[in-house]
């Protein structure tokens, strides 16, 4: 036994213990401030529920929707949240396949966003229904009505795609939690122990289990990427399938997917920064993570500009009257303030922050992400509403202004996201413990020629808490 080995032997358990302890602390200990935050968020969610029940009771008329603007805030939120859901699974899957090691502290964080954003997003098509209690008529089942749903409707595609994506994302999130639940099972006491015992499914950590888990995750990563792309493409097709000026566009699929990833990464950065602060995970979520994600965000911001130009230039040059009416209404007409705010939020502000290395700090990326989240919400709004206000026959043009019900429900979902997230981190370690620990080990090939200085040359150096720091 070499000295080095002995040193390691002595240091390691402590170090590992600390990692586990750090990551389990948020799960096992909850400060009163967290409870207060949860209650505040819960109050918003409750207000949203009340508003929804009010709307279901009296009718959609309590919203600001009208003819011809039959879709407004709700569908904007739907598209926005489904977009946010692209933060996680897609990014995590890509990074997994690319074997990017810096992903390890980030993946679960991201995947959780996906699941919650999907649930919130998918609730909007139901919230916006004229008869929400009949939402299950969208589901194909042998019903007493003697009729099945219409698979030619993009809404049915939506239903299929979201179901698939939610199933996949849940699996993608939950499968790697099983070993961490096993750890919790061993650590927790009382009712939590019983709960985690069930959740851990009897996981031990045999080579067979590890192998199957890793294989499953590899398959899921391959499958989930095309599903994620299809989901937002299909969301875009809700618009692109119908002959509405500026909706009926072939660019909508990739445009929506790019926008989704864009807003998703922004949401992920914000979530990570918050977790870092609130759960004291400074040693695990490091500036380098924000830097890498910031670079991704930069690419997406440029991509977003590319799509905006591709969409608008084509319409402008083509000069089809109904389309140009919508185009000009957004750029110069009544939507001018919103449109240029969106451009600032999605490009003019974040671009320099993300492009200049010195500004691509945690604070910098969070500022950029915050404007992007606002900008992307506005983008969704500017896709949904102006086209409806300025549809073909000028005699039937209209106006839209949201009512308090819509605003309340929208705010409620923005509260629901952190609430669900907080609840989640109270049940699951938000950083995958086993993956993080696995990252500590050098790759087998490297282990054989483990040499001093190798670690320093590792490009991902510093992504893990170093011993004794």
């Amino acid at each position, binding site marked *: *036994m070499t000295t080095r*080995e002995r040193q*390691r*032997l002595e240091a*390691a*358990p402590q170090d*590992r*213990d600390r990692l*586990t302890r750090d990551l389990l602390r948020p799960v096992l200990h909850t400060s009163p401030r967290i409870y207060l935050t949860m209650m505040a968020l819960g109050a918003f969610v409750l207000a949203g529920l009340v508003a929804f029940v009010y709307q279901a009771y009296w009718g959609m008329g309590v919203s600001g929707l009208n003819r011809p603007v039959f879709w407004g805030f709700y569908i904007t939120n739907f598209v926005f949240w489904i977009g946010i859901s692209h933060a996680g699974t897609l990014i995590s899957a890509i990074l997994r396949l690319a074997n990017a090691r810096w992903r390890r502290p980030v993946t679960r964080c991201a995947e959780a966003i996906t699941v919650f954003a999907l649930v919130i997003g998918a609730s909007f098509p139901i919230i916006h229904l004229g008869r929400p209690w009949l939402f299950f008529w969208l589901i*194909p089942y042998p019903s007493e009505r003697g*009729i*099945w749903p*219409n*698979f*030619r409707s993009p809404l*049915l*595609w939506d239903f*299929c*795609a979201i*179901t*698939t994506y939610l*199933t*996949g994302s849940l*699996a993608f999130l939950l*499968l790697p939690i099983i*070993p961490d639940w096993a*750890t919790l099972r*061993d*650590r927790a006491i009382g009712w939590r122990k019983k709960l985690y*015992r*069930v959740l851990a*499914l*009897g*996981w*031990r*950590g*045999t*080579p*067979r*289990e*590890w*192998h*199957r*888990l*890793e*294989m*499953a995750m590899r*398959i*899921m990563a391959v*499958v*989930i990427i095309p*599903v994620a792309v*299809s989901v937002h493409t*299909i969301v875009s*097709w809700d618009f692109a399938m119908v002959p509405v000026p500026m909706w009926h566009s072939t660019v909508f699929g990739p445009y929506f997917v790019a926008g989704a990833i864009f807003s998703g990464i922004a949401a992920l950065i914000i979530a990570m920064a918050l977790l870092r602060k609130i759960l004291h995970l400074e040693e695990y979520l490091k500036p380098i993570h924000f830097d890498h994600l910031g670079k991704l965000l930069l690419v997406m911001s440029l991509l977003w500009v590319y799509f905006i130009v591709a969409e608008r230039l084509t319409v402008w040059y083509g000069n089809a009257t109904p389309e140009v009416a919508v185009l000009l209404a957004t750029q110069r007409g009544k939507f001018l303030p919103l449109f240029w705010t969106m451009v600032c939020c999605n490009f003019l502000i974040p671009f320099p922050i993300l492009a200049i290395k010195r500004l691509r700090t945690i604070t910098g990326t969070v500022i950029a992400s915050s404007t992007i989240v606002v900008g992307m919400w506005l983008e969704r709004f500017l896709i949904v509403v102006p086209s409806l206000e300025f549809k073909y026959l000028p005699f039937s043009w209209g106006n839209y202004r949201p009512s308090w019900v819509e605003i309340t429900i929208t705010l409620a979902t923005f509260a629901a996201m952190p609430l669900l997230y907080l609840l989640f981190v109270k049940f699951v370690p938000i950083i995958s*413990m*086993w993956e993080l*620990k696995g990252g500590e*080990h050098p790759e*087998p090939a490297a282990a054989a020629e483990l040499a001093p200085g190798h670690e320093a040359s590792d490009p991902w150096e510093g992504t893990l808490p170093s011993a004794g720091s």
Partner: protein
Amino acid sequence: MNAIYGLFPDTDSARRAVKALGEVSRRLRFQPRQIVVVSQEPLDDREMGLPRQHTWMPWIAACGGIVGGTAGYALAAFTQRTYPLPTGGMPVVALWPASVVTYEFTMLGAILTTIVAFLATARLPRYGQRVYDAAVSDGMILVGVADSDVNAWRDLEETLYEQGAERVRQFSTA
């Protein structure tokens, strides 16, 4: 069921223990596959000297995808043919819309099959008593032999300690 196992603080000692156990297996009359390894993080089989794991999961998932896609197309086509309501001047069974549904069901099939295949081949969930030690979740690696001859336990304990086990424990179901 019974077992004797040692808890090892790191991979190196665990690897040595596995190797040593393999060497003593014939002498102590147990099969190499009776060696139990439990760890809190994935270990490399080759490095550990364990038999290579193999699984048909990708193929199962692919089959699941094919079945799902077929089911999806069948669902769409069946529905539309059973309730042949024309809409928008489209054919009753329209290929393009059906392809979207087919695609999503393909993926759903693959996902569901993967989940099922994972649980089945990893033999989860299983809540009964098995060789395990809560110390694993503190980062220790468990290496031991299950269902071996009780008489060999002393030798085994020695072997495990020799390879650097911090503790050696015995396990048996009542």
